[in-house]
């Protein structure tokens, strides 16, 4: 059976230890050198970056997340021993692990590391589909001759390089489609390398619960449960037409995924549905001035992200959550798509005024939806607002200044509220 040493990258026929370096970190699988679609997922990415940058944290449980009201973004593996999980409310995490060190997220630092990792992946193939800062699909089909090595070797080399050059570890899932690759990367974390081959796909999937299917959340899970479907084997007993009749287009997906079939291509062009930012306040507030400051900052962050991705949106969305968790969402379609913070802010501000919702609020969010390419954005001016063009130019100029001298080189007074 083909095997690979993850430390020295030697390939050989199956053995318990690497014949050349004696390492036990072996991955062997009958289809190891025939599979080419992978999912790379960094291990506790934010927490790992924090630990690397502050060696004092190395042996402590670290939670990355915001404030007392926030939730856990990432926690290191030490914190996970106490039961802390991502997306858990902070107070609960601290109850489970009172000695944890809570670090405020430094998204800019993580984005920087993410860029370095992406550059390493781009040396392997242009077919990369980043899912977030810390995970991506990689399609290495047809690259074996170019690299002189099969995909499995290149992937092992990628994570080894991440560890030696950046001090960050990642787990690889290797399979024959995206669905299975994503499942595989999660099987052996951290520093994992898991393979799901074609021959074992069926046997692997059948006993698993349906929630391993990407996109099956609590709601779908409950609906499936109501139909008596708990495992993928249960799902396989259903005819395609029946699944479609009961679950709509989701039923069609379930039918194919239950059989390990997934035709989606690895492509970076998959455009997000929306770009949004939201903030949960330390203290609930209904003060219009404070909220206005937040709307501006969120609009600016949304615009920054849209600009970075060369996207623009035709719809501005405002989301408010009241102290009793009741949420209000308002959206407004623009005639002309935009990526300009000033326009996003004005629209969101207008939505806020019109929503007439009574505070105090615990959360406010701004998003751009209905996304298009940036070359279709902000193409026509407004006759009745002749200064809009000037403000857009000022914003572009400020962007250029920030790009050169740093994020805080120039800010609007409005952002200080």
């Amino acid at each position: 059976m083909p095997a690979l040493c993850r430390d020295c990258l030697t390939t050989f026929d199956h053995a318990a230890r690497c014949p050349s370096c004696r390492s036990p970190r072996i991955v062997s699988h009958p289809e190891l050198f025939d599979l080419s679609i992978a999912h790379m997922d960094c291990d506790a990415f934010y927490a790992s970056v924090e630990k690397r940058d502050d060696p004092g944290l190395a042996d402590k449980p670290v939670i990355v997340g915001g404030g007392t009201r926030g939730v856990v973004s990432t926690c290191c593996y030490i914190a996970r021993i106490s039961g802390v999980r991502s997306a858990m409310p902070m107070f609960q995490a601290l109850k489970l692990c009172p000695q944890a060190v809570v670090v405020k997220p430094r998204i800019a630092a993580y984005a920087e590391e993410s860029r370095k990792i992406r550059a390493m992946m781009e040396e392997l193939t242009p077919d990369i589909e980043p899912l977030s800062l810390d995970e991506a699909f990689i399609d290495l089909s047809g690259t074996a001759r170019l690299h002189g090595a099969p995909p499995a070797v290149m992937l092992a080399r990628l994570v080894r390089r991440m560890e030696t050059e950046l001090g960050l570890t990642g787990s690889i899932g290797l399979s024959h489609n995206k669905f299975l690759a994503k499942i595989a990367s999660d099987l052996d974390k951290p520093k994992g390398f898991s393979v799901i081959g074609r021959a074992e796909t069926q046997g692997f999937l059948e006993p698993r619960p349906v929630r391993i299917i990407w996109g099956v959340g609590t709601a779908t899970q409950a609906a499936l449960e109501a139909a008596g479907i708990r495992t993928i084997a249960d799902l396989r007993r259903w005819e395609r037409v029946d699944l479609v009749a009961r679950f709509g287009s989701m039923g069609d997906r379930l039918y194919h995924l239950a059989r390990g079939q997934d035709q989606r291509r690895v492509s970076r062009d998959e455009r997000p549905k929306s770009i949004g930012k939201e903030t949960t306040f330390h203290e609930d507030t209904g003060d219009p001035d404070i909220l206005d400051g937040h709307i501006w900052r969120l609009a600016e962050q949304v615009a920054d992200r849209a600009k970075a991705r060369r996207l623009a949106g035709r719809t501005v969305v405002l989301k408010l959550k009241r102290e009793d968790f009741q949420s209000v969402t308002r959206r407004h379609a623009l005639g002309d798509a935009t990526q300009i913070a000033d326009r996003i802010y004005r629209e969101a501000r207008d939505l806020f005024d019109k929503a007439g919702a009574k505070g105090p609020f615990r959360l406010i969010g701004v998003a751009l939806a209905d996304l298009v390419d940036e070359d279709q954005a902000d193409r026509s001016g407004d006759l009745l607002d002749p200064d809009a063009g000037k403000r857009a130019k000022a914003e572009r100029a400020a962007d250029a200044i920030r790009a050169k001298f740093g994020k805080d080189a120039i800010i609007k007074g409005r952002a200080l509220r």
Partner: protein
Amino acid sequence: MKLSIERGTLLKALAQAQSVVERRNTIPILANVLIEADGNQVSFRATDLDIEVVDRAPAMVERAGATTVSAVMLHEIVRKLPDGALVNLAEDGSAGRLTITAGRSTFSLATLPREDFPVMATSEYSTNFSAPAGMLRRLFDKAKFAISTEETRYYLNGVYMHTATGEDGPVLRCVATDGHRLARIDAPLPEGAQGMAGVIVPRKTVGELRKLLDDDDAAIAVSVSETKVRFATPAITLTSKVIDGTFPDYTRVIPTGNTRRLEVDASEFAKAVDRVATVSSERSRAVKLSLDEDRLILSVNAPDSGAAEEELAVAYGDERLEIGFNAKYLLEIASQVDRENAVFLFNSSGDPTLMREGNDTSAVYVVMPMRV
């Protein structure tokens, strides 16, 4: 109430009433038309609380009275009756039913009491004047395409009718804009309209008003107050609330220093714009105009779907210019031109462009360019 009326007359009178009635409304009485019979006349009144229309028609009234029934249903029944039929409407008040008979057909419709029907409060009109239907038709028809549908700027959801000073003296002026294009249409100020308060006539009212204006020679009595506007012919009275808001100062939007003059046959131009825009699948199709000595090249370049180009012989004597527009806006303003050539006045590729018909300044259009 009991009356007989010719089917065609009844259908015409009901047509306007049923179009004012909102299809989806939560107040049952607003779906009804108020029928009032007295003397030798019957009137049909419908409202959506913002607009009220009263349509009067001659009828043989046997017993005076009033009631209300579903406007849409009554209109549908009358529409389906044979042409030339004599229609009898009878209501005895106690049964809560209106009986409609024509030939061998009999219908019975549920009624609601007339007392429940909201009648728009009468208002003191500060200005009253008479204007030819043809003139009003031109003012509103040429302006209405530019009305905004965006609810956030509700004060643009109508036509701003006001008095102003045009090149040849005082004018009655209609302006509409949505921020991308603007139409400013003038007509000589009718006798008695001096000092009229400017009002924003809502989009729906403009649509309803259009039905009063088909007869060129008819005189329309116009009454204006701060909150309402009324248009009346001998048969129909249309009363509407006006939009409560301030129309923006449009005068600073209309460019005065545009010197680059293009003259082109409007219908040839529109056809060419329409043709080249076909290749674009974007929602806002951008057309590039490249102008050079007596030559106009229209082009569309849509990376995803294709490209198109067309050349037109035009009159243009200024420097080379490249400027882009939303194809839809160009088509709409070009279609307003009906007698002479379209004259475009440009400044730069980023500034508003002005369009008019020949040298006629009584109808000018402004359109914002688009980056291409």
